[in-house]
């Protein structure tokens, strides 16, 4: 058992690498510092004094309530996002490890599984800022224990029984439904189109990113809208609703297809068709985010014309230009268990100019909000977005020509 543990920790350490540890340390330092600032300057001022007194008088009850909430949210989070490598790889299988040793190792490894460290890491600063040190430590340890137990539970559920088979069947049902939504009653080319969103459901890393985009944008819009005052910065939130997926997922570009690009290239399937499918998918998968946001936005916080204008601009123009360099990518291991590249030392699969394009999209939109009349901004955004919808196929044919100029280099990069 200790050999397995040592081996696993060595592999983990090696995959992060020296640079990775430095990056992780600086990321955590920055995260905790920002958490501290946010809690101290923003939230502590806004928490009613009575609540703070109650926390101080009955810390055990408060901790219990936090733990129950954390348990529920953590279980749901891990159900969707946590994927464990529970099958022995060839190296381990050919060594004299018994099956029950392996099973025990899988359980013990939950103590240092990155997903299980996430909850206590994110809550560490808050624990000590809201409670005295002793109670803060108790809360932190409780959250850690909850996270480990949840992690083990989810691993066991996914490992046993017909979880994977049920999931695949559920995806097939969803695939039929989404294709019907995209193409109406007469569904054509469902398997070609569904590469884009089935990959989001079945490729663990993309599922994390897609849902992270949803959750992050939902929280941003909720927090920004609850005080009822719409200032110009809030235009960024509304636009972000409609382009978040093309930023989070779109930056992967053809990374997703890179694993099977040889199979695509040798078939009569045009690249502009793939890009067009991606473009439409970004629009469709935004809907489950937009509908709840419409429900939580207070009445009158943002005008309906502005909301619609950003919807058309973001979905039409923003999603389109984010795919301009989609072909210029590297190979991407679809089934890596990496969490935000912490397990992976290699360079990014994409280039920084996607963020430059995103900046341009936002700058144009925000610039238009400074036009003398609000309707001028709304009309301009609608015209840009609608024109993009109508002309996107020609745009992607142009992108396809860019790909053809150096196609062998790109195809080689995909391997």
């Amino acid at each position: 058992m200790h050999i397995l543990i040592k081996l696993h920790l060595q592999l983990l350490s090696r995959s992060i690498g020296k640079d990775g540890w430095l990056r992780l340390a600086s990321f955590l330092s920055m995260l905790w510092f920002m958490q501290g600032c946010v809690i101290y300057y923003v939230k502590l001022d806004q928490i009613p004094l009575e609540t703070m007194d109650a926390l101080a008088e009955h810390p055990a009850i408060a901790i219990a309530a936090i733990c129950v909430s954390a348990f529920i949210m953590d279980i749901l989070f891990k159900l969707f996002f946590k994927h464990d490598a529970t099958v022995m790889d060839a190296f381990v299988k050919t060594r004299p490890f018994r099956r029950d040793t392996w099973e025990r190792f899988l359980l013990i490894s939950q103590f240092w599984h990155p997903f299980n460290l996430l909850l206590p890491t994110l809550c560490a600063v808050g624990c000590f800022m809201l409670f005295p040190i002793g109670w803060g430590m108790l809360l932190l340890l409780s959250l850690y224990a909850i996270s480990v137990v949840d992690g083990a539970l989810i691993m066991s559920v996914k490992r046993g029984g017909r979880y994977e088979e049920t999931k695949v069947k559920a995806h097939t049902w969803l695939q039929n439904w989404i294709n019907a939504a995209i193409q109406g009653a007469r569904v054509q080319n469902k398997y070609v189109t569904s590469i884009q969103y089935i990959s989001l459901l079945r490729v663990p890393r993309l599922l994390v990113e897609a849902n992270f985009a949803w959750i992050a944008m939902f929280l941003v819009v909720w927090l920004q809208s609850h005080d009822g005052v719409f200032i110009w910065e809030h235009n960024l939130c509304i636009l972000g609703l409609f382009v978040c997926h093309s930023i989070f997922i779109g930056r992967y570009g053809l990374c997703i297809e890179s694993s099977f690009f040889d199979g695509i290239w040798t078939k009569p399937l045009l690249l502009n068709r793939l890009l067009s499918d991606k473009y439409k998918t970004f629009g469709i998968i935004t809907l489950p985010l937009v509908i709840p946001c419409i429900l939580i936005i207070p009445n009158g916080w943002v005008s309906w014309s502005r909301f619609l204008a950003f919807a058309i601009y973001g979905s039409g123009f923003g999603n389109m230009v984010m795919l301009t360099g989609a072909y210029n990518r590297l190979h991407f291991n679809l089934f890596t268990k990496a969490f935000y590249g912490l397990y992976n030392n290699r360079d990014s699969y994409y280039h920084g100019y996607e963020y430059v394009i995103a900046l341009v999209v936002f700058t144009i939109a925000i610039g238009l909000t400074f036009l003398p009349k609000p309707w001028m901004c709304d009309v301009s955004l609608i015209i840009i977005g609608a024109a993009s919808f109508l002309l996107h196929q020609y745009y992607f044919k142009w992108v396809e020509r860019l790909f053809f100029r150096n196609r062998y280099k790109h195809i080689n990069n995909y391997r």
Partner: protein
Amino acid sequence: MSIVISHLQKQYDDNFILDIPSLIIEDGELVGLVGNNGAGKTTLLRLMLDLIETNHGQVVNNGSIVSVSEKWKWWTGSFLDRSFLIDFYTPEEYFGFIAEVYNIAQDELNNRLAHFMPLMNDEILDRGKIIHDFSMGNRQKIGIIGAMLVNPKILVLDEPFNFLDPSSQHIVAHLLQEIRREIGTTIILSSHNLSFVNDICTRIILLDKGHILMDHFHREGDKDVELERYFLES
């Protein structure tokens, strides 16, 4: 349908990986490409499928220059390795994808898949698994079926007998002969399995360090003595 290769060269830095002055593969031939590791077999197949760039020369697939036109993709089926498979799709979805790309109706797809049932052996369809979770052997079967499903006029396979159990190897060999007989498919396959190459190929090309060392017509079932001598002595 024929493949014409002229002055084909591929080099990396100063090393010539492949150098073929001329090669013509006629309609209906079943060509076995053999050679030791590093001979250039996979490189030649990749050049035929426009997956890598030539340094010189061209491959013409029934009048269509592969590096210039995309028409050849409509009549060419191929499977080289797992980079041809969509790992997050189930086999049904993957076959459905191929059918859509080649405009094969669902009914026709089902008829064609029925033909491959002996090869699938109840291990591939209706398993509720994505391709990534299948064994190497079953993935190989999925790839071969995917290539043959489109009833291609040209079929390119790289070591199709790899990872397959003996029964499946025989089934694949039989299917290749059948597709050649019934549709007139021209097949180019590379293999280290000399026994199957001798059994089913009508022409054997031996590559050595990127050059064609031997290229002769062959009677199916006969043993190629010259070939065996080459591998024993090398």
